[in-house]
């Protein structure tokens, strides 16, 4: 009984870390740009599909850690450049909500068209277990949790300790004043959207 409770607690914490990493991108985009990015889940799926193809054709899962976020940079740029950039300042939140809703459908259907509906699996890159209260726990989940914490920590450091981070925070507080102070507000918006999208596929 104690083992089951302890396992559930540890597992909950691990999943919490993983979900936090996926959702922090959503939070960043909403917090800074006030865009409710309904397409965030679809972006996550695109990242997973990219990772599947990369690991299948290049033979190693490690490549997808680099290639999937890069693919997402291209997609995020296309989404931002084609629609969102014109509808952030001075428009109600529901306008970008509808745009991202449309983007979600496009991404979902494209994924279905290219990948199909059949479920596929990326082989476990760390197929080992760690001992846990007489039982076993998958090592890659521990890795994923640690990686998530590292990404979240890096993001906090980036926002607090770099010039670009300062620009993002300043733009969020008052974009007019930030612009008057020389902050390139349109660039900051674009960068924030791309960063948030990349976090969905990390």
């Amino acid at each position, binding site marked *: 009984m104690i083992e089951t409770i302890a*396992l559930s607690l540890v*597992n909950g914490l691990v999943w919490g870390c993983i979900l936090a990493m996926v959702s922090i991108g959503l939070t960043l985009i909403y917090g800074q740009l006030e865009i409710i990015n309904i397409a965030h889940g679809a972006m996550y799926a695109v990242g997973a599909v990219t990772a599947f193809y990369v690991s299948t054709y290049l033979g190693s899962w490690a490549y997808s850690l680099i290639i999937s976020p890069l693919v997402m940079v291209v997609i995020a740029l296309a989404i931002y450049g084609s629609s969102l950039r014109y509808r952030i300042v001075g428009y109600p939140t529901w306008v970008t909500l509808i745009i991202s809703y449309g983007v979600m459908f496009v991404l979902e259907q494209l994924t279905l068209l290219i990948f199909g509906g059949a479920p596929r699996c990326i082989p476990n890159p760390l197929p080992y277990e760690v001992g846990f209260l007489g039982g076993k726990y*998958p090592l890659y989940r521990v890795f994923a949790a640690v990686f998530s914490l590292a990404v979240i920590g890096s993001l906090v450091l980036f926002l607090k300790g770099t010039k670009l981070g300062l620009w993002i925070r300043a733009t969020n507080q008052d974009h007019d004043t930030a612009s008057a102070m020389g902050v390139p507000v349109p660039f900051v918006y674009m960068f924030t959207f791309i960063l948030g999208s990349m976090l969905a596929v990390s």
Partner: protein
Amino acid sequence: MGRKSLFVCLLVAFCLLFCLAGPAPAGVKPIRIGAVYDLTGALSVYGSGSNMTAKAAVEWINKRGGIAGRPVEYIVEDGATDAATGIRKFRKLVLKDRCDFVLLSCNSGLAVGVIPIAKQLNTIVFTEGTARQITGTKGNRYVFRQINNAEMAAVAMAKFAARKLGKYAFGMGADYEWGHSVVDTAERCFAPLGIKMLGKIFSPIGTVDFVPYLSKVPKEADFIVAGYFTADVIKLVNQAWELGLRIPIFVGTLQSIRYKDLGPGADLVWCGTYGSRSLEGYPEDVRPFQKKYREIVGLNDEGWDKTGKISAEYIWAGWEGIFWIKKGIEESGWKSKKDNLKFMQALEGARVEASLEFPQGPKIMRAEDHQVIGDTYILKAEGGKIVTKACIRGEEILPFYPPNVDYRKEKVR
């Protein structure tokens, strides 16, 4: 020509045109068959496959003169793996497209929702949903099921497990009609065979993390019976291995799942399902028809379609659904929905042999509950592919699965 003459000429021309282009002779009015298949969502590997085979069957029939001299029109709608959407599409097919018969996907929730409406709209449906109650207490005379159901697969599974897998089982399943059907029936069948179900647990469809559920599997369990489909099977099997569980897992379907997606624990996976993936897994009396059918619909001998994404074991139901309709129309002399009762009576108790029309094997459409009794297949992941270990013939299952309703007592409009 004066205006008056021109008007008269036009009037005569219009009348002539109207007479010539009048209603087509009754014999050439097409028979409209609709289908609600899940072309998107979690069940799309079933829906897309069944759509592919149903469409191929209609083309094959039309090239040979149609059904009873009438061409067949096939209209498919996407059920999107959502019962509410599917029900809406069913209504559209019947009320707007005027379909005479409708094929339903393997989504049991859709079938359960559609059954009373089908009766209301006087439309006969053929379903691939395998939850037990569809041809039980939730069914009616308007529904036929052209595929064995989950209970029958579980009976076959239990018989096989008793011989091969051990004495103690643990049940896991998706928390909906079909998942419960698989696990509960297995439990019921295990008792007389000397297998004890140590417990059972159900998780929502699409569960991402099976660890909390797998941690409940007792150490004494010799094997797991799992009522899951598609991605859930992959997650369950991989996560069981990651947790160090090294016992066989008997699942209800492996449709479109590749060996390598099952991960390092693949060889522990068994499956009780409705067809063989490979051609060679079919009995000799069925294989020639199965081969021809695969050539027509575009499946290879290993059981994959041209895209390599859809496998063969379940999707023959689309093909056979069309041929059940053909058989019913031809044997009853059905002309329109007014003849639905004759159609039902023609199929109630109908027996078919293995043939190109019925390439999955011989079967009976049981008169009482409109449930097909056909062969069930035991598959196993082994040596890099999914192989067929046994074919449990319909007549072996029949004594274990008596009907619990008799629709023939129902009145039909």
